[in-house]
């Protein structure tokens, strides 16, 4: 689906901003995103492949890259806990970005149109600390890349790797600045093809869509290293895979994305697209996956979302909802989604809030709990929270 629907355009913008940041350390806060986007040809779809019809997915091939599309990502989030009850949240996202539809003339091994961006974050719930890192590299000379068999996506020493025939069990390794993860993820539920058989339409325009599949519940174990200490942990992760060549909707201003794992075995994904006028866009949607892996699509008007309170980043001044109430009247679900740590703002070249959340509430008369990940793109300082 298109939870991170706007990532497409935003990524290109972000990459441009990041590149300039990388070259010019003294540059002020990136302001001219539009200019930069234009410089990188952000809105030019010509000659890229597009997600314009349903396709059949083949694994493990589709775990690998689709370089003819402009953007692609491997997006892993999860909640972990050690034997003493110490909780961690983590995110590792590897983005692939094509700078041009076709591969350039290969005069040197370093020449490529494929660029990788990585975001890595660890939330230390007890320490109320959030560590986030970012890196870039070109997809050449082995510095970064993606391949289906054996499955491997890597950005230098941040890597997701599988076996000869499958992505799972998936090994996740990342480390920087005294924070490191080494986790193994098992797939217990079948793959979820989002939207229409994996085609996630974003707007009425043909091709303005992505191919999107998820693994919504991945039992996880491994180690977390933090400040010289190593914790043996286990928990549950979520993988989103998406590739597309799509544009930003002019009427949309941002989104809020929920990936929740409930303790009754159900997983719920929903993203709300915010319209510039403050309303929920009709392309907002989600999915509900039951304990056996059976899924059903959630339409925008099946879900009622209410922000609760407000958290203002002391570092950036950006405002985000402090918590959410998410109701699914059709399923008699009434959930409160609360960040495990208030400040899980990703202050990187693309600024957003993404972090571990705790879920509590009711499924009909029954009490229900859960956990998951929440992503909120930046709310303009003056935007109404509704």
């Amino acid at each position: 689906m298109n939870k991170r629907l706007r990532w497409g355009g935003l990524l290109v913008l972000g990459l441009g901003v990041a590149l300039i940041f990388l070259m010019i350390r003294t540059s002020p806060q990136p302001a001219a995103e539009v200019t930069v986007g234009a410089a990188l040809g952000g809105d030019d779809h010509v000659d890229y492949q597009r997600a314009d019809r349903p396709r059949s997915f083949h694994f493990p091939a589709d775990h690998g890259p689709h370089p003819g599309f402009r953007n692609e990502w491997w997006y892993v989030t999860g909640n972990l806990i050690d034997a003493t009850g110490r909780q961690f949240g983590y995110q590792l996202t590897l983005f692939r970005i094509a700078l041009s539809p076709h591969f350039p003339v290969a005069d040197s091994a370093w020449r490529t149109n494929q660029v990788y961006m990585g975001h890595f974050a660890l939330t230390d719930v007890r320490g109320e600390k959030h560590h986030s890192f970012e890196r870039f590299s070109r997809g050449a000379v082995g510095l970064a890349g993606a391949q289906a068999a054996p499955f491997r996506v890597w950005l230098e020493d941040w890597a997701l790797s599988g076996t000869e025939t499958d992505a799972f069990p998936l090994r996740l390794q990342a480390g920087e600045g005294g924070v490191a993860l080494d986790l193994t993820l098992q797939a217990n539920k079948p793959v979820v093809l989002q939207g229409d058989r994996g085609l996630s339409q974003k707007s009425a325009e043909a091709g303005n869509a992505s191919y999107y599949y998820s693994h919504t519940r991945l039992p996880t174990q491994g180690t977390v290293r933090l400040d010289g200490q190593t914790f043996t942990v286990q928990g549950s992760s979520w993988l989103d895979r998406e590739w597309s060549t799509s544009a930003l909707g002019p009427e949309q201003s941002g989104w809020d994305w929920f990936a929740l794992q409930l303790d009754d075995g159900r997983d719920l994904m929903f993203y709300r697209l915010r319209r510039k006028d403050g309303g929920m866009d009709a392309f907002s949607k989600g999915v509900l996956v039951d304990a056996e892996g059976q899924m059903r699509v959630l339409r925008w008007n099946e879900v009622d979302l209410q922000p609760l309170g407000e958290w203002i980043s002391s570092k950036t001044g950006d405002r985000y909802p402090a918590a959410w109430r998410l109701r699914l009247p059709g399923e008699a679900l009434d959930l409160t989604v609360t960040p495990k740590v208030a400040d899980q703002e990703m202050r990187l070249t693309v600024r957003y809030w993404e972090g571990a959340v705790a879920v509590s509430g009711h499924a009909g008369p029954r009490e229900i709990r859960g956990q998951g990940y929440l992503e909120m793109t930046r709310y303009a300082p003056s935007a109404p929270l509704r």
Partner: protein
Amino acid sequence: MTPLLWRALLRHPLQHPWQLGLAILGIALGVAVVVAVDLANASARRSFALAMERISGQATHRLTGNAQGVPEAWYVQWRLERGLRPSAPVVTGYLPNAEQPGQLLQILGIDPFAESPFRNPAADLTGSDFDLRALLLDAQAALLPEALGERVTLKRGEQRFTLKRAGTLRGPELDGLIITDISTAQTLLGIAGRLSHIDLILPEGSAGERKLAELRAGLPPGLRLERPDERNQAIADLSASFSLNLTAMSLLALIVGIFLIYNAITFSVVQRRMLLGLLRALGVSRRELFLGVLGEALLLGLAGTLLGGLMGLWLGSGLVHLVTRTINDLYYVLSVREFFIDPWSLAKGAALGVLATLAAAWLPAREAADAPPGAALSRAHLESRWRASLPRFLLAGLALLTAGGLTLTFSQSLAAGFAGLFLLILGCALWTPPIVVGLVRLNQPLTARLGLLARMANRDVARHLSRTGVAVAALMVAFSATVGVGVMVDSFRGGVAIWINDLLNADLYIAPPSMEDGGNRSEALTPAALTVLRNMPGIAGVSTYRGTRIDLDGRPITLIAVDLAPASQAGYRLIDGNAAAAWPTFQTGEAILVSEPLAYRRGLAVGDRLELPTDQGSRRFPIAGVFLDYGSEHGRILLHRTGYERYWRDPATGSAAVFAAPGKNLAVLRERLQERLGPIQPLLIRSNRDIQTRTLEIFDRTFTITQVLRVLAILVAVVGVLSALLALQLERAREFAALRAMGMTAGEIGGLVSLQTGFMGAAAGLLAIPTGLLLASVLIFVINRRAFGWSLPLEVNPLLLLETVALAIFAALLAGVYPIWRMARTRPAEALRME
């Protein structure tokens, strides 16, 4: 000191504008040369530092390799397996601009994704519209300096590459720099798969040391981790001797300037002996007079220094081009050729100018203060005092000459060599007045026969010794400097010509064209081309060469791997070691030959061992011989190909030399080679004559700056002759008037003046020859040896000596023209009424 005294003192120079102007010009020229050379040296240093800084950036360490660079796999491995960050790959090199001959552009290939902690070459790009996407995707995209157009065409050998502007580098320090993506740089420089180096930022202190040790432990031989600042210093030091030589030669010009100032001030004191005596009688104290004359000199010095500073700026902007070109030819590439005005250079020049003036004015000022009150210090008294002190001159000169000789004999350093040189020059200068008197005496029998006029002219020189002695000494120093430097350059050139003629004795030389450009020197002959050479009929022998830079205690030294035909061996003149024994040992590939400068610097002799860093680790090679070489002042090492391949991982051959079979027509052979080699590889085939000519061209280019300094010294000398003799003759206007009143014609007096100035010019010119030859010997046998480590044969071109004497006489005669013209125009009675 009263204003009246000042007015009394200053009236004199203002009434003698010629004297004043020429004295100021003398100081100005001396200061100008010193300032110009210092500015040029400082600019070259600054250019180098900038070029290095923009390459090194913030890196604390870098991984480098031999001629082949570093395999890029190392970078990937470090990043992936060790997570080594910050680290950045760099591909850099120089390519000539195809549209502007002689302009080398520095290519800096970077990975923008790894770049930010290291360099900020694009600092001025803030807010500009550089196209990063193009930089990554387009093999023609580059960030170009402002000075270049929208596109630039570079060449590497036969290949041409056009780059388009994808952004602008602003600022003089980015001049001559082209930034591209690393992929583009690899393509441009033709080094696929390799990096020039990998930059690292390691933490300071023990953590960094640990990391460094850990990284070093994993390195194969041939790759090394070093500190870029130390490395850059070592490279910058390569040209240190060259810079020091230039500085010393500029000081020579200043010394000539000091003599001119001394001459001018002495002269003005002597001229004013009446006034000075009067002032003393009026109650002016000795101290006041002393300070007055010194102050007057100071004003003169300040004016000259100011003018000299301005001239130095102008001259320096011209010299910097010559200095950087020489450094480019001989030491390292300088792509920045900006003229930087270093305020420190100007300050040094100003201080030197003022101090030199004060030092030069010290004696005359004391002389002035010693004037007895009332009675003017009589001219006769002064002259007799001078004559009485002639033995003292001889003794002091002897003392200085001895001190100079001892300094040269018992010191080792280059600076002490120059100190000894200056002592010798001063000693010779002190001997000049007594010798002039001697010459006058010698001349007496001759002039007696030539008539009254000649006798007067001759005796006048000795009679006015207080003025003429100093003037001749000053001129002698000036001309001797030109003789000394001229003979040294001639000798050097002669030595190089013989050396290159012996060394390049093969018929044809074959090399990839890029070797010519001074850019990428790692290009090689293909094995196929070598096979053609070896199997071609009509070829009697082939020698092959491969040069690589190795590090000897942090200094880059050229190692040449050779496989020499017997005739090529004969071209190397062994100055230590027996050829019959040396060559067979050398052929095993286990022994080396070292060049004379290397042997001199490290005190090496046949039988010693020299430790070289090979790709297989360190190894001590015995020295089989020392060969004569002017190729590099830092030394070169010859190793047989078999040994090179055994210890270095570099199978390539850089160039080859071909001996034609006896009786073969060279032109035909060359054509046939061209035909056979052309399809295999673009190669340059040149005759030995071509290369010899080119080598001597580079030599001449190198010495252009020396010649410029020499011409400047001549100019100072000519100004000196003019000012000294002009003043001397103008002062005698009254005397001439008296002579005319007694019946002498204007023509006869003109003859008298010409004879006298001509005699002085000839004396200065003649005395300059032995002094100049002494100077040349010191330059050749002491200075060159210590600065560059090589021995040169002393070669004297008689024409140069004749030229010097002729120039001195001509300048002297020229100095007489104005006084004669003025004297002829003035009625004797009027002139007699003057004063």
